[in-house]
């Protein structure tokens, strides 16, 4: 009799333990830490002479479509991601320019124009609540500075109009990139290296237009890093001509900046709306998914515990408790399915939001790319003529004709 009592007590404890565990699982919430602290742009405390300011070229970001998780695949609109890949780098370039730590900072239409520092980026996640960007930085010598992943989870506060008027909701991420870039330059580059980088980028541009003349000034080591072997004279007329052309290349890039500025202005309103709505839907979706998963686990545990109690129970009370546990577990599982169905509705809402924004921005992306390609083609045609003329001038001066 006492053994039976002990068994019954143990089983009751188990059932109670399983019940408590299930309740804990259901009650357990995942907490997302959101930072509301604003990271400002750090400006170089030293007044850097213009000769030591590096020009920065920000490339169009990789939309990161290949790296989208299967789980996010349904809620990520590819066209929206492509639109973001032109929007985000413009904001980054703008942030870097405003930091006053660099020379000219431009969003580059292509990789033809050598710049002192290059920034490449890949958008890993962007749903209105979280933005994750992988950034790689290198310089004209071919040396890679670093590759880092920037992740920012913002709060609803960032979408308030007062905040939105001041900056982009994810401005912090651009500020952090800017600050890291400054920190790297301060800690790793001497003035001599900065001069070298600037000279190499100029020689690379000169080599693009007059390879006969400027090929010999640069050499490449095994790792693909450029080094200067000799320097042209400052009064070299070909170098002067190349500098004139480079000024025009900057003009061309500036013109493209105007295209991008127009695009960003046009995209901002629908994109912000999308992000604000996507923010809420994403949070809802995530919570529903988590809740559904918890209910599945707890329900399964309750069913298993109840089955164990019901089958191995020595008395009626234990068997009855087990049956109740099975019923409760089944109910939890059913509510998990309900939550999943609810989550599916939010997923569809997100898809619709993405399609709506796609309809808004896809033509603009197309127009932007079309204009950029057209202008680039026209400019390249002119450049080709200048290359020929420079080659002829060189031949004439060398006396090769």
């Amino acid at each position, binding site marked *: 009799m006492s053994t039976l009592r002990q068994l019954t007590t143990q089983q009751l404890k188990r059932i109670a333990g399983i019940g408590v565990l299930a309740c804990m699982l259901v009650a357990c919430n995942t907490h997302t830490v959101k930072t509301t602290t604003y990271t400002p742009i750090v400006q170089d405390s030293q007044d850097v002479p*213009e000769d030591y300011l590096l020009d920065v070229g920000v490339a169009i970001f990789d939309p990161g479509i290949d790296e989208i998780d299967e789980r996010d695949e349904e809620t990520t609109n590819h066209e929206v991601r492509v639109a973001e890949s032109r929007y985000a780098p413009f904001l980054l370039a703008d942030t870097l320019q405003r930091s006053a730590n660099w*020379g*000219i900072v*431009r969003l580059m239409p292509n990789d033809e124009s050598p710049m002192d520092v290059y920034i490449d980026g890949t958008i890993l996640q962007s749903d209105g609540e979280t933005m994750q960007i992988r950034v790689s930085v290198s310089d004209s010598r071919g040396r890679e500075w670093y590759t880092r992943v920037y992740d920012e989870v913002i709060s*609803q506060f960032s*979408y*308030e*109009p007062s905040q*939105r008027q001041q900056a982009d909701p994810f401005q912090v991420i651009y500020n952090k990139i800017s600050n890291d870039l400054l920190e790297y330059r301060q800690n790793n580059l001497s003035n001599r290296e900065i001069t070298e980088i600037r000279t190499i980028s100029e020689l690379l541009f000169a080599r693009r237009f007059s390879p006969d003349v400027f090929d010999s000034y640069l050499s490449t080591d095994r790792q693909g890093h450029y080094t200067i072997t000799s320097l042209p004279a400052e009064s070299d*007329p070909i170098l*002067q*001509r190349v*500098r*004139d052309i480079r*000024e*025009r290349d*900057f*003009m*061309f*890039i*500036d*013109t493209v900046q*105007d*295209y991008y*500025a*127009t695009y960003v*202005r*046009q995209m*901002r*309103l*629908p994109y*912000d*709306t999308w992000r*604000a*709505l996507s923010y*809420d839907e994403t949070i809802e979706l995530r919570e529903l998914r988590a809740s559904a998963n918890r209910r599945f686990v707890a329900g399964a545990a309750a069913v298993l515990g109840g089955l164990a109690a019901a089958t191995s129970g020595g008395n009626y009370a234990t068997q009855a408790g087990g049956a109740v546990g099975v019923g409760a577990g089944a109910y939890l599982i059913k509510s998990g399915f309900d939550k999943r169905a609810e989550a599916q509705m939010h997923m569809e*809402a997100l898809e619709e939001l993405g399609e709506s924004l796609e309809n808004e921005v896809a033509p603009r992306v197309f127009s932007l790319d079309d204009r950029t390609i057209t*202008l680039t083609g*026209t*400019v390249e*045609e*002119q450049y080709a*003529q*200048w290359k*020929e*003329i*420079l080659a*002829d*001038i060189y*031949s*004439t*001066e060398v*006396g090769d*004709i």
Partner: protein
Amino acid sequence: MKTKELKSFAVRPLSRIAVLALVSVSLVACQSSSSSSSSAPAMPSSSSSSSQSSSSSPPSSSSSSSSSQSSGQNQSAGSPIPSLPSSQSGASGSQSQSAASQTAAGQQSGQQSRDGASPSPQGAQQGGQVAGTTAGSTAAGTQGNDPGQGSGSQARLPGQGSQAGSNGRDGATGDLGGGTDQSSGGGLDRSGGDYSLDTLPDSVFGGGSSADGADGQANAGTGTGTGDGGTQAAGAMTAAERAEVLDERLRRGYETFDGFILGERERAQAESNAAGSSTIGGAPGGGGGSSSSAQPQTIPESGASPSAVLASTQPQSSSARPTETFPPPEDIPSGRDDDVVARQLREAAMSEPDPELREALWQEYRNYTGLGEDQ
């Protein structure tokens, strides 16, 4: 018979010699004429400028510079300057002037700030004006030299050389005709933009490369010499002179490019400003969607957006519409009792600028209102 045969045998060599001499003379003449005809298309500048204009569709600023050049040429052609000394000295003088002006233009364009600020359009226009004045002086110089050398062959006429140059130059602007048939026909066709030093004979170099006038002077110089002078003078062109000619082409390419880019930038900035104003007017109003938390944010801005959008669009629509109205004919009554259709017909007729269409609309109005039947 024998004497006749002998005579005929004696005459044949003579006739052969004569034929050979004729052939040689014609060959020489052909050579000189071919050199002149090749100097006409020789305007590599014109070829390049035409190809540039066709490829890059130069905007208003570049076309303004080219028009200023053509106007300079027209002025000089209208009032030839007789006071130019010998053609060669005149040529060298004007070449140095053009070189000076080119360097000035180059400095203007080269003085852009490091942050990519574009050169001022005024600078580009000044460059175009300078080029235009040099072109004008050149044409005048060649015309002044022309009378003194009038006895030369066609190929050696400096006037033709200069006209060929101006033709090639004006092929880009499309302003001047008036060159010789040879030069105008061959020049533009051959100068189709395929630029390379290999394709340009030396004699062409002097004439063709300087659309701003140096070419005409080089040809003027050849005109003063003998029949072989054309090739001799052009062949004597030094490497520095060739480099200068190529530099000139480069600089004119800069001008075209600057004009094109400036025009493009103006357009892009205007679009950017328009997009900015519309964005400000229509600030995030769409936030008033499903989320209740987002609604308070959007109320003030969405409330402000319609008026702002209206404010920005109303003037455009009003300015876009033609405001001119035309009074109705005398037989048309006041229209106080018109129905909607008749009123629309009346308004359409009163705002129609084309008289024929207007009359047709009035006739339609008459038919609709029964005025035609009454009459």
